[in-house]
């Protein structure tokens, strides 16, 4: 069990209560379950890393329990109750410094728990109908909440009296009617104070708390269906949004224009996450598939069928192709180099026609190509040899 969980690079929570780990490089999916029999009230609603070293996962369920899963051992180590089911499901889980846990339920109660006590240290009421709570990656104390008719509020956990920033609704429209407001997901933009949110009225807003303007700084629209999930790319200039019809789009945050769409999903998007170092985005949703798209050319790289509807997604910080590397490592590289040397010697020299755009990249390909570049310039022929079957 432990070795299965150690190679998993993507973690997903499903509606049946099963925690799924997927190893993208090995193309294998593993189920991890707490109890011997499954039940629907163990449905996973929140997932987050237990500590910055990513050795523990915190799984929040519908009935208010939070389970700890150890990645090293591959088993659930702890299960504690952090709220009543009457409060609603978890809409956000976050950890501060690895020991304190911040939970937010649908009824708006934001609680901070310490490891030793069963009573919350701080309790904040974030309004009714909260849809999502997210933590700022830079300042562990700052969290943002938003929901139906409940605008974006940024809270500082050390000052629980009131929010640091409350967003104002948009101006009334041309008929002087109040605009409806439903924040579904938000993210903190790195290197600045700004927060980007997506709403069920197919809008994407960027708020800047450092300016006195409480209305959105940037407004963008995409599609005709509610946007349910949002994720920022690693550089912070593009945002990936998904809607209930399974359409995923890349929006540019400088002007608010649509850069492109990712195809393939057939059902509503429940969770999206961009990888921190590589330009890939993982998406999961109601059609029971995990899909990994590349952000540069918007092609589908991996598609894995997981038999239940998926609720949340978490990418591990290390590289997606890490598993195979660590396992086979040196042997494969040496063997392939030998094979290639023979092949290159046998072939005649051909002048390189020009740089070819690489569609699918793997770590091994990159490394070897870097080596080969110095030796020969036959990239085009090399591509044909290197084609590994990719499952689409």
């Amino acid at each position: 069990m432990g070795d299965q969980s150690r190679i998993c690079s993507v973690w997903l929570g499903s509606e049946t209560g099963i925690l799924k780990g997927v190893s993208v490089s090995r193309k294998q999916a593993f189920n991890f379950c707490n109890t011997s029999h499954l039940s629907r009230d163990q449905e996973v609603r929140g997932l987050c890393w237990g500590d910055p070293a990513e050795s523990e996962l915190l799984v929040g369920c519908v009935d208010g329990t939070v389970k700890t899963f150890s990645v090293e051992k591959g088993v659930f180590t702890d299960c504690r109750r952090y709220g009543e089911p009457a409060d609603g499901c978890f809409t956000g889980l976050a950890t501060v410094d690895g020991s304190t846990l911040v939970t937010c339920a649908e009824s708006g109660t934001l609680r901070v728990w310490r490891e030793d006590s069963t009573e919350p240290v701080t309790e904040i009421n974030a309004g009714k109908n909260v849809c999502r709570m997210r933590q700022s990656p830079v300042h562990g104390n700052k969290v943002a909440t938003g929901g139906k008719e409940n605008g974006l509020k940024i809270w500082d956990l050390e000052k629980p009296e009131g929010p640091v920033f409350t967003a104002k609704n948009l101006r009334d429209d041309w008929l002087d009617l109040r605009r409806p407001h439903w924040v579904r997901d938000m993210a903190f933009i790195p290197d600045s104070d700004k927060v980007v949110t997506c709403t069920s009225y197919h809008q994407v807003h960027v708020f800047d708390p450092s300016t006195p303007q409480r209305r959105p700084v940037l407004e963008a629209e995409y599609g005709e269906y509610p946007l349910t999930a949002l994720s920022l790319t690693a550089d912070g200039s593009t945002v990936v949004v998904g809607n209930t019809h399974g359409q995923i789009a890349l929006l540019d945050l400088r002007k608010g224009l649509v850069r492109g769409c990712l195809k393939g999903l057939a059902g509503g998007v429940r969770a999206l996450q961009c990888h921190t170092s590589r330009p890939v985005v993982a998406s999961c949703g109601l059609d029971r598939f995990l899909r990994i798209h590349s952000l540069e050319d918007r092609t589908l790289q991996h598609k894995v069928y997981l038999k239940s509807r998926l609720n949340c997604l978490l990418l591990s910080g290390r590289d997606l192709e890490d598993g195979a590397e660590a396992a086979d490592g040196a042997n494969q590289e040496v063997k392939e180099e030998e094979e290639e040397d023979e092949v290159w010697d046998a072939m005649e020299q051909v002048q390189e026609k020009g740089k070819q755009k690489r569609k699918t990249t793997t770590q091994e390909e990159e490394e070897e190509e870097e080596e080969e570049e110095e030796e020969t310039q036959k990239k085009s022929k090399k591509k044909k040899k290197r084609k590994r079957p990719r499952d689409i």
Partner: protein
Amino acid sequence: MDITEVPTNQHGKCKKKKKAKNKSDSKEGSGEGSGVEKMEDSVAASSFPPTFSVSEIKNKQRRHLMFMKLKQEKRKQKLQLKKKKKKERKALGDKAPPKEVPKTIENQRVYDETTVNPEDEEVAFDEGTDEFSAYFNGLTNPKVLITTSDRPRGRTVKFCEQLATVIPNAHVYYRRGLALKKIIPQCIARNFTYLMVINQDRQLANGMVLCHLPDGPTAHFKMSSVRLRKEMKRRGKDPTEHSPEVILNNFTTRLGHTIGRLFAALFPQDPQFIGRQVATFHNQRDFIFFRFHRYIFKNEKKVGIQEMGPRFTLKLRSLQKGTFDSKFGEYEWVLKRHEMDACRRKFQL
């Protein structure tokens, strides 16, 4: 000028000789200057197989003639091949290799990874606790409300009435321009389990929205080929009040399973075999064919069936989680024509 003078019989005679054809065509089709080049080309190109095709002849009638001759030749060759094979088969007798199975689209279907494996526990649990579990565990009885889009016309009204006789415990109500979102809470209060809305366009029923009631999925279908009872040949008497048996064919993938259960939950769980009626939902190539028959066993091996009742064809357009909410509902599956219908051999249900 003499280059262009070619007697017409030449075509009839030397149709097999491609080189000669080349020369004659080049003489007819192009001018004098290029004629010389083409002659040279044909001489130089004699070492490679001549790439002449019928489409290069500019004269339509001659081209047509040549094409017909080509086709006849191909057909003759095919027949000869068949005869030869048959002779060989006869000669071998018992030792002949088995007959090859012809390729059909269903044979060539791309393997779908969501095909349900009957022993899969996770899928079994998922199905066992989904929105239909109340019906399949025997806790609720189906009660169907059939209605139409606003202001229905003759055919649709008759179709709804006939559907109500086919589905036991079904009630037809006139839609007085009411919003579906307002009808649904009232239906739930009156213990209905299904809401079926037949959409009409230009006096023809063309769509169906099937919503499972307490909190269940909503399926939107495109309906075509609707035939009423009076259009059925050799129809027989009207269906009786007995609950029919239900046959669900060929719902193999996970999505297919959900839709199959959606249809199964329309009918009561215990069929009355006395009535000898059966409703069939047959899925083929993502189209679902509905037929309603009455059967009688003549002896142990022979059955006679008589089709009665309406027949229609459905194609799934979207499956939405939750009751009808097209604006804010989450879709579990949406038909995206350009992505999903691109491959002829890939099916979703």
